[in-house]
């Protein structure tokens, strides 16, 4: 331990939670010592002043809330907190291996369920859970994708409990967003706090675009020597448009909208000033159902009619593949440790949050016996609907939950409450503990690469564990040490 310095961190109290800066559970987080000392060398007002400069920069850049008229708020960014979240090299090595393992299993699982369905025949996961899932896509049956890569870009949501272990909260295998903030947050830190970063040895994140482009080129249709990659965006009014711009620029590829594309003879083209030019790989930031009005939602204008025909013939590659939503579903999540075991014959390196599957008798029994200690989630719903938080529920709510569980146990999973780790964060009241999560991004072409770090989201409201930007969430720069 370094000697006490009366800097801005000296009054900081992690309130009993595992702290990303100070450690916990017997770990004193020696890897952050140099960063702590430097932070303590800064005056709190200086810290705030530089934070304001950073905010102003985001405003001029057009990626933050506009202050004049609310109706113009189409460019928004997570509020940015200047105190970084730091991850040691050893811890990162585990996360990197764990994320790679998980993505590998997800891809094998998707290939299997859209082809031979061995995992269903072997009874590892209930067939109706997969085939009856609303994200299962029959159009993908028998469709081959290059290298069996379905999930080119994956975001794995991790949280860290009181014991300091990272566990997987959720897989995001459809169109995970947020990576642009990872890179932009670093640039912002480099401009605002060069003194904090210098000579610490932080792994760079700026090559994400190159890595993504390489992976997309790798997975182009066979026989195309110089594939044309494009990024398909729903357009300027999409909340992630800033990220679409960022990625298109980083990769040097055209950012297209559905109206720019046309399918002729089962091949995809884009409309240019000199007629139409072929397109081979589409990094699409448009959800499955809007991709092709012929195959899915007929009212969609965000995709291109005939795209699925071209895709099924192997004339165009889509990243991510269509139908990946079945793999990151809550119901399937519960089975992921078994899925990993089945395909890779390995234990999950990053465990799930302990999950009780109520469709299984022992899971249901445990859940009913411990209802007041568990979080019960319906599997079909998204966005936190229908969740019962046992420790905070009334007796009546618990009884209703019990009745629902007994009526349709297969629709529920149950998990213990996880105390999210905290990170020192600049607030009105000085530097305080706020809860954080972590979303590392994995890019897969022929093989998988994990961006060192990922998006650290922080719940800026005191005591809150909700990190979503719509509910008071912000973000931090994530430093993986060399």
């Amino acid at each position, binding site marked *: 331990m370094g000697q006490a310095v009366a800097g801005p961190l000296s009054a900081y109290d992690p309130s009993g939670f595992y702290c990303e800066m100070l450690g916990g559970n017997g770990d004193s987080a020696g890897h952050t010592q140099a960063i702590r000392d430097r932070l303590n060398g800064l005056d709190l007002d200086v810290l705030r002043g530089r934070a304001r400069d950073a905010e102003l920069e985001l*405003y*001029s*850049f*057009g990626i933050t809330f*506009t202050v*004049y*008229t609310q109706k113009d708020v189409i*460019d928004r960014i997570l509020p940015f907190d200047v105190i970084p979240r730091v991850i040691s090299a050893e811890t990162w090595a585990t996360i990197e291996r764990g994320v790679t393992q998980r993505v590998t299993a997800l891809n094998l699982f998707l290939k299997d369920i859209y082809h031979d369905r061995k995992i269903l025949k072997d009874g590892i996961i209930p067939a109706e859970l997969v085939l009856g899932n609303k994200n299962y896509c029959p159009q993908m049956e028998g469709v081959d994708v290059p290298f069996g890569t379905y999930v080119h870009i994956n975001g794995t949501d991790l949280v860290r409990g009181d014991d300091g272990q990272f566990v997987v909260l959720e897989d995001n295998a459809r169109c995970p967003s947020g990576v642009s903030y990872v890179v932009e947050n670093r640039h912002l830190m480099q401009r605002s706090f060069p003194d904090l970063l210098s000579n610490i040895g932080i792994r760079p994140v700026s090559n994400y675009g190159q890595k993504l482009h390489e992976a997309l080129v790798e997975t182009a249709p066979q026989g195309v020597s110089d594939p*044309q990659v494009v990024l398909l965006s729903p357009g*300027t009014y999409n909340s992630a*448009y800033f990220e679409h*711009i960022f990625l*298109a*620029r980083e990769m040097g*590829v*055209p*950012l*297209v*909208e559905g*109206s*720019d594309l046309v399918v002729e003879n089962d091949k995809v083209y*884009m*409309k*240019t*000033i*000199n*007629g139409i*030019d072929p397109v081979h790989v589409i990094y699409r930031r448009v959800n499955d159902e809007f991709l092709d009005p012929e195959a899915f939602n007929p009212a969609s204008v965000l995709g291109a009619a005939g795209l699925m025909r071209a895709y099924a013939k192997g004339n165009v590659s889509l990243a991510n593949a269509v139908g990946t939503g079945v793999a990151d579903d809550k119901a399937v999540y519960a089975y992921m440790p078994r899925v990993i075991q089945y395909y890779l014959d390995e234990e999950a390196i990053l465990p799930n949050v302990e999950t009780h599957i109520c469709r299984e008798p022992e899971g249901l029994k445990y859940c009913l016996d411990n209802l007041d200690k568990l979080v019960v989630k319906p599997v079909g719903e998204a966005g936190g609907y229908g969740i019962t938080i046992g420790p905070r529920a009334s007796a009546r709510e618990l009884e209703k939950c019990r009745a629902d569980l007994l009526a349709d146990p297969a629709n529920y999973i149950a998990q213990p409450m996880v105390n999210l780790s905290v990170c020192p964060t600049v607030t009105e009241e000085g530097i305080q503990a706020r809860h954080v999560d972590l979303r590392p991004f994995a890019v897969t072409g022929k093989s998988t690469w994990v961006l060192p770090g990922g998006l650290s989201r922080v719940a800026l409201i005191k005591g809150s564990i909700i990190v979503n930007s719509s509910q008071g969430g912000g973000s931090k720069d994530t430093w993986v040490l060399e």
Partner: protein
Amino acid sequence: MSRLLSRYAEAIYWMARYVERAENLARILDVNETFSRDSRGWQNWQSILQINRDEERFLAEHEEATAEAVIYFYTLDQRNVTSIISAVNQARGNARTLRPLISTEMWIQLNIFSNTLKSIAREDLSEPRLARFCNQVKEACQTHTGITEGTFYRDEGWFFYQIGRSLERADQTTRLLDVKYHLLLPTTATVGSPLDVSHWNAVLRSAAGYHAFRRVHPSGMTSADVAGFLLFNSRFPRSVRACVHDISNRLSQLRSSYRLIGGAGALEELDELRTVLDDIRIEQVIAKGLHEFIDWIQLKLINIHAELGTAYFGHLAPAEDVVEQAV
């Protein structure tokens, strides 16, 4: 390198047009403020509504064309699509679409420009302060032009930028002349009077053309000289002829450098317009009617715009009356 998407080509073209439009609107308001300091003040503000064909829209919401109301209408009124703030918002909107192509510096400057305009209060525009506002707008537009010159990658997109800017500038110079034309109508007796000369002087200055004019015409100033200068001088960057030559050259370069198939129709229209501008004399124009001549130029510019749309922007071949509303 992939070819430029039609949608981007159009957005670049419009971004350039809207910035140029904002600058010229500021120029017109500026010169008009000078005119309005005389006994015919109210007429001057009404004439601006006339040349922009905005009388009907304006009078639907306002009882009379007071200076204050017209100034607000053309500067900060976001409901008016022909106001400066609307033009800048449109430029910013196109720039936002173009973020993957334009330089970050171009985007940031337009974003700040648009945010700054939104922060200006109506009171800040009363007539004595209008000149300052107009200067601020001109300067921001010129900053945009400078940043673009210094940072915008020079591929096909750059040509569309140049074409859009020159086309808008040509159109706006004809409008600037038309302001004067309207002023002359009611009392033709004052043509050539000291008052009249001071107005032409103001027109020239608003186009930043006074000194250039003096180099060509060291003494004296007649209506014909000024109109001829603004229409036909090939060395003055805001003259209609210089702009039309520029469009024509850029379009030819664009087509040959990038082996583009379309665009022959636009070149034909340009050739016709250029030939007339090269050959006709201002005396002939005045004899036939300046206003009619200006109308004809504007029609030609509309045709060129429509031809570019079908050749490059993926527009369907326009019906006669569709063209008008696109401009």
